[in-house]
């Protein structure tokens, strides 16, 4: 049984308008205590999906942080998430990175691969192709640092899996607008 038929909202909801897709949203927020809790609390309380979330201060003078959220939903749901985020008092603005801005996306991942012999050589060779840097080495392991769009990182991880991949750590997606204009 799918989750769709299991979910019992107050009234039968009209069947989803449009297909689900992934969306990257960026929120510029006042960097104050509890702001992350507000954003995360809103997303969980309203039952939205969250695939990754990153946050850091971006302007010390103005005291602002940028929160980048990767979420999934129908176009109507994504629009609701944007509006609900925009309603939070410390949120200054919400940017739909996927839809509005011609934006760059980057993610950083640390990937640990344990192995010997040919597999170890192969992992090093693939890492070079992906421009992943070994940042820690022992006789039977590497830790690679790789930066890129999510697809590239996913592809790298898939290739490393049969070669002794044991551990992954990812930052989640960061985004910025292309060109001279800023958000």
């Amino acid at each position: 049984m799918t989750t769709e038929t299991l979910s019992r909202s107050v009234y039968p909801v009209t069947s989803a308008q449009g297909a689900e897709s992934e969306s990257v949203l960026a929120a510029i927020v006042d960097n104050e205590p509890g702001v992350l809790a507000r954003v995360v609390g809103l997303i969980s309380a309203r039952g939205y999906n969250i695939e990754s979330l990153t946050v850091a201060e971006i302007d010390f003078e103005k005291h602002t942080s940028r929160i980048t959220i990767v979420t999934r939903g129908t176009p109507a749901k994504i629009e609701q998430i944007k509006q609900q985020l925009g309603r939070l008092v410390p949120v200054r603005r919400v940017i739909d990175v996927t839809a509005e801005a011609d934006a760059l996306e980057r993610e950083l991942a640390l990937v640990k691969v344990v192995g010997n012999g040919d597999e170890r050589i192969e992992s090093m060779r693939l890492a070079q192709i992906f421009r992943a840097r070994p940042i820690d080495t022992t006789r039977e392991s590497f830790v690679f640092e790789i930066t890129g769009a999510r697809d590239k990182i996913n592809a790298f991880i898939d290739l490393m899996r049969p070669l002794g991949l044991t551990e992954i750590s990812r930052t989640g997606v960061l985004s910025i607008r292309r060109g001279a204009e800023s958000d």
Partner: protein
Amino acid sequence: MTTIAATLKEPEAAAVPAGRSRERATTPKSGAELLLDALEEQGVDVIFGYPGGAVLPIYDALYKRDTIRHVLVRHEQGAVHAAEGYARSTGKVGVVLVTSGPGATNAVTGLADALLDSIPVVCLTGQVARPLIGTDAFQECDTVGITRSCTKYNYLVSSSQKLSSTIHEAFHIARNGRPGPVVVDIPKDVQFEEAVYTARAEARNRNCIVKPDIDDRRITQAVDLMRHARRPILYTGGGVINSGRAASAALRALARETGFPVTSTLMGLGAFPASDPQWLGMLGMHGSFESNSAMHGCDLMIAVGARFDDRVTGRLDAFSPGSKKIHIDIDASSINKNVRVDLGVVGDCGEILEAILEEWRRRNSREEYDFTRTRDWRGQINGWRSKKSFNYRRSETAIKPQYAIERLFALTKNRDVYVTTEVGQHQMWAAQHFHFDEPNRLMTSGGLGTMGYGLPAAIGVQAAHPDALVIDIAGDASVQMTMQEMSTAVQHNLPVKIFILNNAYLGMVRQWQELLHGGRYSQSYSESLPDFVKLAEAYGAVGLRAETPAELDAKILEMIEVDKPVLFDCVVTKEENVFPMIPSGAAHNEMLFGGHDVTGDEISEEGKALV
């Protein structure tokens, strides 16, 4: 972008001598004094509260001043509901002062209530001293954590320098944009710490709470749709009341000049006069046949400050299938949330109604509007009206609850009357049979549905309007949830009238059990109800009881005449149901009516899972 100063709806400049405000600005004072200075500057004249360890410095400062009246409640939930009643009947911000820990947690229900009904409330909570935060100190709780999801915004004040500025910002947030509750959590040592006052004019104001500019193109589109409509309806909500009296005036003018029929949610009652021939009555689950039929059959729906709540829409996929929809709301997230609309207009609904009215007149001056467009529609509505869906079987021997409300309305009609309600059957009967011609006259818990709201809310209304007649239309179950506030009413000489429709059941629960669960009345009968007359006397109030229709009028008049709080035990028929009713999971055109034989299978299997 609109400037902050321009968005302030009610300046509420306090009448404080100039000398005193200068003194405020320069001399360092304790946090408690700064707090009261800020409240004075915000025009606060009454606080609803309950003292405790973590707010003692504030109560000490309050003791020395006579500018702010303090109403001592008996439970912190009551304090918030009283502040809500005050806010809703005046349009001003209600203020609550409670202590840390249990004081704050007891206030949570009231805060959630104010959030769902968009009521401006500022709730000041004490907190343990800063060095103790996070140590599980006595009466410590994570107030900002607990209240984060039931407030519009909340603060933990980290130093007394920030205190007065934070208070001004809290009021700004509470009253502007879509109003709501704001919590300010103040550690006890901040209340002692000295700092210099920050005046309202210099305080930081959040720039996100701005009234969006009106989009003229959308106004033109709206008027286009309105001029072409053959079956239009105005569906109004609490937003019209929150927007202020000008919004009600604009709504009335627009309805008059367009001839469009008007219906309203429970929250919006009174914005449009119930005595007007264009009025269709309340809509939704227990709304009138004509309003729900008109919502279902219209070709243009103009939603003003309403949010397509599930009590209003019923089954969403069958909701008003043939209509174009215009949605006017100050909260952009309300638009397209539950129902897709064709034209969303974001902004203050009073200003937008005025803009639409202006455009309507401009277009009319060029080409006269053709009233015959809606002639058939008016005829159809009159047909629905003739069903008289609020009718009930009358009785000579027992008091029908609907009859009790009818008599209460008839006997108080020409007075300055404010009504609050609890939650349940009596609330719906009040909405059906008590008619409101003015906004801010009905205070009821619409969104959260908080039983126990009405009595403390009535206290708040009475504190704001000492000479008015304030009636809480209550049920025997609801009223017991906050009954202790009778003591507050007596102590503060607030002569509220608690009119209890006593059927000895949790009436709405019983009705649903009858319709949904084969008449198995699980835990919905109240054994051993108190004797409300003796209870009133125990509190030092007046108790009255009516058991027959013959004595009802005289007893109601007696209640009105008494200048003391009254508990009125109106003994009504036990098994009356609220009709008409749209069952769960049904559409607007599938209503149940009174006098109908209940078989127990009115609600589909699917509908039973819904609330």
